[in-house]
């Protein structure tokens, strides 16, 4: 079982999983923000916004994540020169790759977030929005105070699924050199192919430890926060 102690001592596996968690949480926050805006565009009465929102979801959701992440590095950074960190910094390459990965993961998962929220909007009866308009709330306030709070509660379970998928999809960041969990796993496998299955097992268990509580938490939240009608 020396491979387990190596996981902690030689490879800093905990740091790798910490990077996975940071990637996931940061991307989750941005994906939620972008996804909410896209969902609002899709349910807005303005035709142009609807088209933009729908196009975003359909294009981004149907593009492979690997392609999105690689594009962030090769396309945005190397070709177009978009840098997300200070170029004079010693840790520029690591920081920049990490942030580009967050960008790619956020943009990609925002499309799933938008669809989850839109399904939540569909759980809100039309009469709720009519009543809000009837007391004089304009469109955005109707959304903010009446429709979205109920929509988010109706969307908790699907949002939990998106967060679990995001956690696991963050491994794609390794293709642009972010040393998250799966990147460290590849190094360990190269060095210790004799204990291949144990290495796989360690990382699989690591991801289960991250995602299982998310599933349990979101399921219980979706029941507890459900809007009683």
């Amino acid at each position, binding site marked *: 079982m020396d491979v387990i102690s190596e996981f902690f001592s030689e490879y800093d596996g905990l740091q790798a999983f910490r990077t996975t968690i940071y990637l996931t949480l940061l991307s989750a926050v941005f994906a939620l923000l972008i996804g909410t805006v896209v969902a609002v565009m899709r349910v807005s009465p303005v035709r142009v916004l609807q088209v933009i929102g729908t196009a975003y979801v359909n294009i981004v959701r149907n593009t492979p994540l690997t392609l999105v992440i690689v594009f962030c590095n090769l396309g945005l950074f190397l070709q177009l020169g978009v840098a997300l960190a200070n170029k004079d910094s010693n840790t520029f390459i690591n920081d920049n790759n990490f942030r580009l990965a967050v960008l790619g993961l956020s943009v990609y998962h925002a499309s799933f977030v938008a669809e989850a929220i839109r399904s939540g909007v569909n759980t809100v*009866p039309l*009469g*709720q929005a*009519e*009543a*809000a*308009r*009837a*007391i*004089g*709330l*304009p469109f955005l*306030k109707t959304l903010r*105070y*009446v429709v979205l*709070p*109920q929509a988010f*509660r109706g969307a908790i379970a699907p949002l939990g699924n998106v967060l679990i998928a995001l956690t696991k999809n963050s491994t794609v960041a390794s293709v642009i050199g972010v040393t998250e969990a799966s990147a460290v796993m590849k190094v360990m496998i190269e060095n210790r192919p004799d204990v291949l299955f144990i290495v796989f097992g360690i990382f699989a268990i690591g991801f289960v430890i991250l995602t299982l509580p998310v599933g349990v938490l979101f399921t219980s939240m979706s029941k507890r926060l459900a*809007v*009683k*009608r």
Partner: protein
Amino acid sequence: MSDSGTLTTTGLVALTDVNKHFGDLHVLKDINLSIDQGEVVVVIGPSGSGKSTLCRAINRLEPIDSGSIMLDGQPLPSEGKALAKLRADVGMVFQSFNLFAHKTILQNVTLGPTKVRRQGKSEAEQKARALLDRVGVGAQADKYPAQLSGGQQQRVAIARALAMDPKVMLFDEPTSALDPEMIKEVLDVMVDLAGQSMTMVVVTHEMGFARRAANRVVFMADGQIVEEAEPEKFFTDPQTKRAQDFLSKILTH
């Protein structure tokens, strides 16, 4: 437009040559109706006669195809902030209550005053509690809509509309979704409101309420206003065949 010009200048609410289609269905046909300040108008008629659509058109929850609707001398704005502002002055009570399910009773009543009228929270709450007391549900202020009976919910919905100090109140079949024993508690509130000279448009099947509280009964059938009269005259001596037929079916039991 010439003969209707007088209508638009007199009424608080004035509908002129209003037409509305749902696809092939012509739901409102050349509706002309003027409602004075303080007047209580009850709209009755068989299902599908367009009376709910008429009610919803007055605050533009249903846009109309042609004609004009004036409120307090101003035409209904078609979109945006101006329309929202107008709706703030028109109270609406729905058949299915439509209380905000995620907010407490008190929050339901204060949402409009705080977010539309920009009143302070304490001022809005004080007024909301007074209104809830007035409609007899003051003790329920901190509960959620799902915890209340239908009759209580509908009275809260009335308080929510009144909190905006509306110029006119629209009631779209307010008692149709209620158990019989709860109908009275809602009608009592409405009769009380009519007594305080609130301008009201009430779509209902409650003939007792029409007799007791209405200044005028408007009878609709097939998208048209077929007859208009004072309640006593309408119920005892309807002029049109269609109204006689309708009344004979509902008043015999």
